[in-house]
């Protein structure tokens, strides 16, 4: 069913090598589980967990061809350092949105 309020904007990522495609798929699945952990950490004001997650995201995303993940990760790390709840909330939503829309082909 199409959600007219939030139409899916597919972000195609083309990967020719089947093994690399599998690695990226695995990476994306692991990032999706990060979303729940980040929201939980935000609820508990666990900025250290958020900072480490952001740090890891910023250091890994582009290596998989997912520059947006690195960009969000770097900003998330900074937001955690600043203890900026609102910014963290926005960035986690951005990350969830990106992961929902990315389409590995």
């Amino acid at each position, binding site marked *: 069913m199409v959600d007219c309020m939030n139409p899916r904007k597919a972000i195609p990522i083309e990967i020719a090598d089947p093994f690399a495609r599998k690695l990226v798929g695995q990476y994306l699945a692991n990032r999706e589980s990060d979303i729940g952990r980040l929201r939980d950490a935000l609820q508990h004001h666990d900025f250290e967990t958020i900072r*480490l997650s952001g740090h890891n995201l910023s250091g*890994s995303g582009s*290596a998989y061809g997912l520059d947006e993940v690195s960009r969000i990760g770097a900003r998330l790390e900074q937001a955690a350092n600043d203890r900026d709840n609102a910014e963290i909330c926005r960035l986690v939503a951005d990350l969830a949105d990106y992961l929902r829309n990315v389409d590995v082909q």
Partner: protein
Amino acid sequence: MCTGATLRVAILEDDADQAELTRRWLTNAEYSVDCYPDAGSFLRAVRRESFDLYVLDWVLPDSSGIEVLQKLRSEMADYTPAVIATAKNEEQSVVRGLEAGADDYLVKPIRQAELVARLAAIHRRAGVVPGGNQLEVAPYAINTSGKSLELRGAAISMTNREFELAYFLFRNAGKMLSRSHILETIWGIDNKSVSTRTVDTHMSRLRKKLGLSDENGWKLSAIYQHGYRLERINS
């Protein structure tokens, strides 16, 4: 290595995805790769085994890559070339990593071709002697392009494998080389038919052929349950 023998890399990285990706890149570049998720398992491994290169993450669950590097250099006298690979990109972090003993510093996200090129450059610096392809380890002289070895100017007749083994030993003089490291480097990692006894037999033969003894100022020692070490005897 002059003939492109397999190089062995130990990666210290707690992020499983990052470790797997780096392993894939380096395996494709014909490295033999072992990954360790924390400082404890990495340090246990390097005490038991030997490697040609280390790639160390900075932020770890039980320590830091910097602390591991300091331990390697100062407590364990382990000067295996090491690269720090981290998302920390501030100047003071770079300085700290290099001052702790890293041979290079890579900021994540790492790029595949750059990683491979930098590791090759480090290894080249570790293996090349100024003046080209001659390694002088008196009274021996090793010519890597001609694959010849001389003792006091007299050529020693050797097979290709014996030459590779001798060059590997001299290039790593003073360092303990594990049997599995020697097997992977000289015989190739897929050669499961070669047993560690083959290493022992070749070492014994090489010791005699090269005259590694007090007279020539070099000693080849078997390290019980570990491997071998070639070292210069102080006169």
